[in-house]
């Protein structure tokens, strides 16, 4: 079912500022339908900013965000969720005093999606049985790994065509990291297009069909995952080998 082909998302010359401080300087990237694309780069490069701009929580000052031949740049986040784009944000960003199930429900907030809520929650529980056990527990009391599952589950609720994951393994134990990456692989195998930001460069590059290196708000290098992995500059600067 892993059909590929055709560009699902194309970002062109994206510029974003926080107040007077510009952090993205003409970022362009594209994600092919059915594939996994990755953005790597050091702290503060602008990776999260890019994902937040694609999801609409941050307004771009200029540039285009073309999803299935439609420019989304002027649409609010709720319109982008309606188009089945979802972001699993850095730091998970759950609602700590809502139950696991309420957190999941809220993932399908746009009115047209509400009628599928039950079926989609069932799908998430099937993928993460541990969430089902803890469905009535407050999200703030979950372990880090469980919170990440809950955040991914919430991101799956709008039945995403494009799922963006921002550092999904940040702060997790190594065993949990493997587990989460396995989940991401499963989701990808179900045909969901993925844009991944990961600080675990090695993992991310092995994992992705295509990858972008971002440095101080610009894309400085791009290519198939393996080719970046074997790139000398990437090895020296990001993989700690010389």
């Amino acid at each position, binding site marked *: 079912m892993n059909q590929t082909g055709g560009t699902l998302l194309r970002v062109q010359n994206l510029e974003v500022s926080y107040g007077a401080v510009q952090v993205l300087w003409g970022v362009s990237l594209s994600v092919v339908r059915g594939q996994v694309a990755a953005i790597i780069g050091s702290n503060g490069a602008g990776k999260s900013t890019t994902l937040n701009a694609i*999801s609409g*929580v941050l307004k771009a000052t200029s540039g285009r965000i073309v999803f299935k031949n439609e420019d989304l740049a002027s649409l*609010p*986040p*709720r319109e982008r*969720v*309606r188009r089945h784009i979802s*972001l699993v*944000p850095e730091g998970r*960003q*759950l*609602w*700590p*005093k*809502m139950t696991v199930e*309420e957190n999941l*429900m*809220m*993932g399908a*907030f*746009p*009115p047209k999606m*509400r009628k599928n809520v039950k079926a989609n929650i069932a799908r998430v529980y099937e993928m993460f049985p541990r969430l089902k056990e803890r469905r009535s527990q407050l999200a703030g009391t979950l372990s880090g790994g469980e919170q990440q599952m809950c955040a991914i589950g*919430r991101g799956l609720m*709008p039945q995403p065509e494009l799922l963006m994951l921002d550092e999904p393994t940040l702060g997790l134990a190594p065993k949990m990291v493997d587990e989460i990456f396995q989940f991401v692989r499963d989701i990808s195998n179900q045909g969901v297009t993925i844009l991944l930001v990961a600080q675990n460069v090695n993992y991310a590059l092995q994992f992705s069909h295509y990858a972008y290196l971002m440095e101080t708000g610009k894309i400085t290098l791009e290519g198939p995952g393996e080719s970046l992995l074997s790139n000398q500059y990437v090895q020296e600067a990001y993989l700690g080998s010389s």
Partner: protein
Amino acid sequence: MTLIDFTNLLVSALLLAGIYAVMSVGMTVIYGVMKIVNLAHAGFMMLGAYFALELFQRFRIDPIIAALLAFPVLFFLGAAVHWVLLRRLPRSDEPTLPSLLLMFGLWLVLQNLGYLIWGNTDRSIFTPRTLSVVSTVRLAVFIAAVGCLLLLEVILHYTWFGRSVRALIQNRYAALLTGVYEDRTAGIAFGLGIGFAGLAGGLLGSLYSFDPDFGRPFLIRAFVIIVLGGLESISGVAIGALVLALVETFSILFVPAGYQLAISFGLLALALIVLPGGLASLLAKVRRVA
């Protein structure tokens, strides 16, 4: 003090707590969703009281019913104020100076409108019930208050609107990310908050006399309750209201009634110094120690 006196005081504290909770819960919802300290709350309470008075005088509508009717009217007024004014405020995760100034200005406007329309004489709502021995007014006020609080709790937990309110309160970024329509939710939430102010004003109006400055001492009490209860939880408000009501009620055993407001202020100062996280943080601390 006999056991009967004690019971009497306890009951009146409980009855008072109900209305205190109603008057504070609106501020809490508004603060939680919009991070705006509603300094105009007292103004809307005043409108609620006069609304109940007018309905009572003109149409002989029972003041408790009139107070309940003040809720929808003030709700729409609040939603309109949000649409016209508050929507334009810059967004922030903390109270901003422009929002404080705007709300303070709004309070002055409402207050002066009150003087313009109703003059500055004291008014009160007298019904046969007011003077009855077993204060049925207080009981009715309490039942109306608790009923409305329960209704709010149900809305917050079992409707999409309620969940979007809690989502905005607990993590605004995540709420936006999942598609919560902030302007609309905040508008309705502000309306609800103002509705509760109107209800509280109407209910208080059937207990105490009032003039267009009505609500000022209650605003301070609402601050105390919110600080005690923690800024963003509804059950916290109920507990804060109960604590303040108990302290105020039992303090008349030791200090003259005229000093009640000083007691509120003292409690506010104490709470800010000792319990910046509200009573919830105290409970958490106790639990950690135990």
